[in-house]
């Protein structure tokens, strides 16, 4: 926390654990000078913590001279930003037309049934969070899904899905 200014330290964000607070401050310091800094900061916070904690909004708002409501408005507008921690792996299932044409609806039903959860939910063992996504740019070889930040998979049948989930679960 060497780079934290005294005035930053004076903002009370009691509910934000110290390690998270440090990560949020690092995100702010890394991007605050960029024009339109809020989105890059929110991305950096989520990359570091897996989500954007509600308790971090006041701190971000204060540092950018915004109101907490403004920051909250931005976070809630974008589907990408989460306000609660995800499971160990995020599986993003494409729901869009080109994947529908190759069986995405059946895959979606299979995924929800075998995981026992709906979209935006996490399995009981904390391994998998299921999210919908509207196109991954892999529309020639659907159904497509993305695991975590960059593991893209093509032609995902229910069997392939089960194998991928099993593998993700095994990966801690």
């Amino acid at each position, binding site marked *: 926390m060497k780079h934290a200014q005294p005035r930053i330290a004076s903002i009370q964000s009691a509910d934000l654990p110290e390690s998270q607070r440090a990560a949020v401050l690092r995100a702010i310091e890394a991007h605050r000078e960029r024009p339109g800094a809020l989105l890059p900061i929110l991305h950096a916070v989520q990359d570091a913590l897996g989500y954007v904690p509600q308790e971090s909004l006041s701190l971000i708002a204060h540092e950018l001279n915004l109101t907490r409501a403004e920051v909250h408005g931005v976070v809630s507008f*974008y589907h990408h930003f989460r306000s609660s921690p995800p499971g160990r792996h995020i599986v993003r299932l494409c729901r869009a*037309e080109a994947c529908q044409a190759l069986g995405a609806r059946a895959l979606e039903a299979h995924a929800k049934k075998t995981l026992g959860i709906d979209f935006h939910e996490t399995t009981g063992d904390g391994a998998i969070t299921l999210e919908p996504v509207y196109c991954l*740019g892999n*529309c020639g070889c659907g159904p497509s899904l993305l695991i975590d930040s960059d593991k893209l998979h*093509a032609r995902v049948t229910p069997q392939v899905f089960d194998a991928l989930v099993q593998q993700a679960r095994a990966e801690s």
Partner: protein
Amino acid sequence: MSAVQCVKVYVPRDAAALALGAESVATAIAAEARKRGIEIELVRNGSRGMFWLEPLVEVATRGGRIAYAPVKTADVTGLFDAKFLDGGAHALRVGAVAEIAYLKQQDRLTFARVGVIDPLSVEDYIAHGGYRGLTRALAMAPGEIVQQVTDSGLRGRGGAAFPAGIKWKTVLDTTSTQKYIVCNADEGDSGTFSDRMLMEGDPLCLIEGMTIAGAAVDATQGYIYLRSEYPHAYRALNAAIANAYTAGWLGTDIRGSGKRFDLEVRLGAGAYICGEETSLLDSLEGKRGQVRFKPPLPAIKGLFGQPTVINNVITLASVPIILYRAAEYYRDYGVGRSRGTLPIQLAGNLKHTGLVEKAFGVTLRELLYDYGGGSWSGRPIRAVQVGGPLGAYMPEAQFDTMLDYEAFAAVGAMLGHGGIVAFDDSVDMAEQARYAMEFCAVESCGKCTPCRIGSTRGVETIDKIRRGERVTENIAVVEDLCNTMKFGSLCALGGFTPYPVMSALKHFKEDFGPLPTHLEAAE
């Protein structure tokens, strides 16, 4: 080793190729070469855009580049045994890449280097015609550059097909000291991936196009607004930008010209509406991505209130060849008012999905059957959605429509960003219409009531129709909702969602009824 040049082997790093297993193939090839004491140079190129052949491995032989495809990790030892490094015979040998009909019959202008070069190498880029356009542009007056773009007939490839030169001229004519070039890389339409393929396979081409745009309108700062669903493109762009800076093609005093251009990539956050240009600008400014009223046009008052050129990836990436080969060269391709080429994306239920760059004028039928090879499932193609989630569903009777903005408009359809999604006869068009409404509800920015509320009502009403409840009346309700959305929405999300819905109703009415007789009797 010095006398013998080591063999170049190409394994794509394109996201679609990776999704089909290219990474493990690349690893296996490197490992097998090491094991056998053979020195190879592994190049991670973009994709040639023939997905049924991915991972497509190429070897540079004396007789040109020879392809083996689709390669699985388990095939690698066998390929070495078959001396594939010399172009040896093997069951997976496809032959000379350049001779594959799917590729050979294309007009690859914008995509000339995609799949060919090492995407991150400035040297390779220049060896294949890169930076010729910018070099010419740097010797011209800004007005002359704009004139070339105008004369080429280039229209925006993001969907609205507005002439690029006119937009640039508007920005050039402003007197502001700070102007911006913004690249719309939000590519939210289902069935489209040309932006992604270009950014991964030839990012320097986009960088060059944006730098030319900067020189044309006196803008010194560029932003690429990239959707967060494209992590591979993000890495490729950042690496290419860093290499362009190092080589003096970005930054202050570009190649001694006295011109400055800085470029940065910004990530979106999963909102389809942020592909709409004014919403995108708000998002870049760090706000909620809400659509702005126009005027003022972004060209007059855009990013941070300054004059801004905002163009799609393909629009900007088509500029280098226009400047290099001159406006007429590009304009001579195409038909009517649709000049040049369109990188068409064949998606959904087709055997040969991929990227087909063709001069405007090719028909939908040629694309679906001659290139696409018919459906993937082997069943008849029943419906085709062109132009993304806001595009109309077209029936077989319209397959002879030519790819031309005006020809599509004439049949109530939209070419958009050139994505073609095919469905076989197992499709339920009422379900597709419902999805169009659902998508609009999920992605609405919330500013207009017809879009925000109308779409949710649309979902409910189509559900009733699908359950067989008062079908005739509810179809009338949907038509009514569509009219309200069409005329009461600020942007094309609310305004064009009626196209997929109404086209499904018009051309595939049988899927919305007929009203079961027992219900009719009950009424």
